[in-house]
């Protein structure tokens, strides 16, 4: 019995150490605007999660909010953490990903004074909103740029897991590529998680061995492996996703399909702080300049007439004269 107790003590210590990343300076003062962020992965991934954390920091710096962040691991924790923040009287809780929407639906009604926002998804409620990013629009533009750079006529998309927004983005990338080069082939692969950078590298190498010479990766921390593979290969290009990843491996990165999460987060947080928040699906597209294709300024491989074509399409996204056939991004 004593041994079991001792062992449980070890586990307890271990869990405490695991939860160290949490920064909550406690509830208490109700007048302070309090904002929390739940990320599905580590905020050091230089992509989806680190960009969200920068958004949280911007809310702190611009709106004087008290902030808290938790990295969740399993869906079971989504609800628990949503509930915790509701009980602590947070004003805004952001679940960073499509996968948080069910938990928001269940917990939202229990804490009517807290606004729950999920990035991705379509679920809304009295105090629940979803941020929807037209990530497919810049993905389409990236596809055009990539197709004109590819020598082999084979490209690849590499994802963490097949979340609907990732799938939509990959489909748009392929459509964009085929709009300028109908015979181009796009291979698809998924790593199965968002952390295993070694697996990301191996999967990228396998795609390169199939003669793919542009890889559009959307795998967060695991995607860093794809950058490494392409850099070692030296004859191919990689495209970043979610954050501006052009600096990760500047000599081989064609560009990044960026979501300006700090900007999007600040907009919704300001609404909540001012009391003008309305529950809805808030769509951020090319027009709101939250999503954009950012070519790597250090590379000159995208030819000027291609740049011009991309720029004109971007303008058409903005004025609404061009819409993607698969415009509904979940």
């Amino acid at each position, binding site marked *: 019995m004593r*041994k*079991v107790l*001792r*062992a*449980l003590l*070890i*586990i307890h*210590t*271990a*869990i405490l*150490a*695991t*939860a*160290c*990343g949490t920064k909550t300076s406690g509830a208490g003062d109700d007048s302070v605007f309090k904002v929390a962020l739940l990320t599905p*992965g*580590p*905020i*050091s*991934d*230089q992509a989806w999660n*680190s960009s969200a*954390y*920068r958004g949280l920091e911007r809310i702190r710096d611009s709106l004087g909010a008290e902030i808290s962040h938790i*990295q969740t691991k399993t869906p079971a924790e989504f609800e628990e953490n949503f509930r915790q923040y509701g009980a602590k009287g947070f004003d805004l809780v952001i679940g960073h990903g499509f996968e948080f929407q069910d938990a928001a639906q269940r917990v939202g009604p229990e804490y009517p004074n807290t606004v729950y926002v999920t990035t991705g998804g379509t679920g809304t409620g009295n105090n629940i909103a979803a941020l929807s990013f037209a990530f497919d629009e810049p993905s389409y533009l990236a596809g055009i740029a990539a197709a004109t750079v590819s020598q082999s006529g084979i490209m*690849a998309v590499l994802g963490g897991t*097949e979340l609907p927004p990732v799938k939509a983005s990959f489909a748009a990338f392929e459509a964009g590529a085929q709009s300028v080069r109908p015979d181009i*082939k796009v*291979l*698809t*692969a*998924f790593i*199965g*998680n968002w*952390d*295993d*950078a*070694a*697996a990301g*590298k*191996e*999967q990228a*190498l*396998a*795609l390169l*061995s*199939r003669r*793919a010479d542009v890889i559009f990766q959307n795998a967060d*921390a*695991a995607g*860093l*492996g794809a*950058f*490494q593979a392409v*850099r070692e290969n030296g004859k191919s290009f990689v495209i970043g996703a979610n954050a501006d990843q052009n*600096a*990760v*491996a500047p000599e081989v990165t064609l560009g990044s399909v960026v979501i300006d999460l700090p900007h999007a987060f600040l907009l919704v947080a300001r609404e909540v702080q001012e009391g003008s928040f309305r529950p809805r699906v808030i769509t951020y597209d090319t027009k709101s300049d939250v999503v954009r294709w950012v070519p790597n300024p250090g590379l000159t491989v995208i030819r000027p007439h291609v740049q011009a074509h991309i720029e004109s399409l971007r303008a058409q996204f903005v004025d609404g004269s061009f819409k993607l056939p698969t415009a509904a991004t979940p």
Partner: protein
Amino acid sequence: MIEFGVLLLPFLEASLRTATPLGFAALGELVTERAGVINLGLEGAIIAGCFGALAGAGLGGPYAGVLAGIAAGAAVAMVFAVFVLALRADQIIAGTAMTLLALGITGTLYRLVYGAGGAALDTPTLAPWALPGLSSLPGLGPVLFTQPLPTYVLYLLVPALLWWMHRTGAGLALRAIGEHRAAAEAAGVRSQRSRAAAIIFGGAMGGLSGATLVLAQVGTFNEGMSAGRGFIAIAIVVLGRWSVLGTALAALVFGAAFALQYLFQAMDWALPYQLFLAFPYVLTLVLLALLRGRAAAPLELGRQD
């Protein structure tokens, strides 16, 4: 017809690369288990090795990184040894706790040292060495002998362990402890000391596994990048029937299964990708079922004092 010849070489290279970190971790765990201790903290030793390698390489270059990775893995195992041997805690629970602890601590340290921006891809890495002569052998020469340092260490580790375990007194003592500790002690073996050494060796190999991931493969660290390799390594030991050669072979089989999975996904076959991702694990289950037969586990394995 798809160009299978062209893909064979990349496949073999990928198999060996994927098998190397698994091989280190599994052979280390094998030694620990042969002493009758199951260390589920192996995953923790690997992630500690990853972080140690990153920090060491940043300070003193890639070789310092390898040493730091080994030391970090050994340190995690030392804590486990204290709990299991000195405090007599349950091995399963203590091991699980060490894995959780190491995953948490490395993540926290990483953010403290490198900030939320991460370490990027600028860690100095171990370049492959082509062994003169051997690397130009026809066929497998270039695959086997144009590798970074850790792979060659692994080549040497297998025969060295085989010799040590079966041809030395210390190896015999270790196996005796794992099979019948009381008898071994009656014969004058100092079992606590041997077990502590076996646990620390296992952790050091876990650390080397992590260092290989960071310095010979990815070139950076990210939180949770061990991604379950410690648990796969424990399964590899079972699959290898607790023998040195069996474990090395099982690691290779696993490496090949993963490499095949990567290649399958790159084939543009219209099949759900989950099928390919499950392939290595399905293969394990099938192999385990086929290899059922005489029990090979050390009799003292996991037994509490």
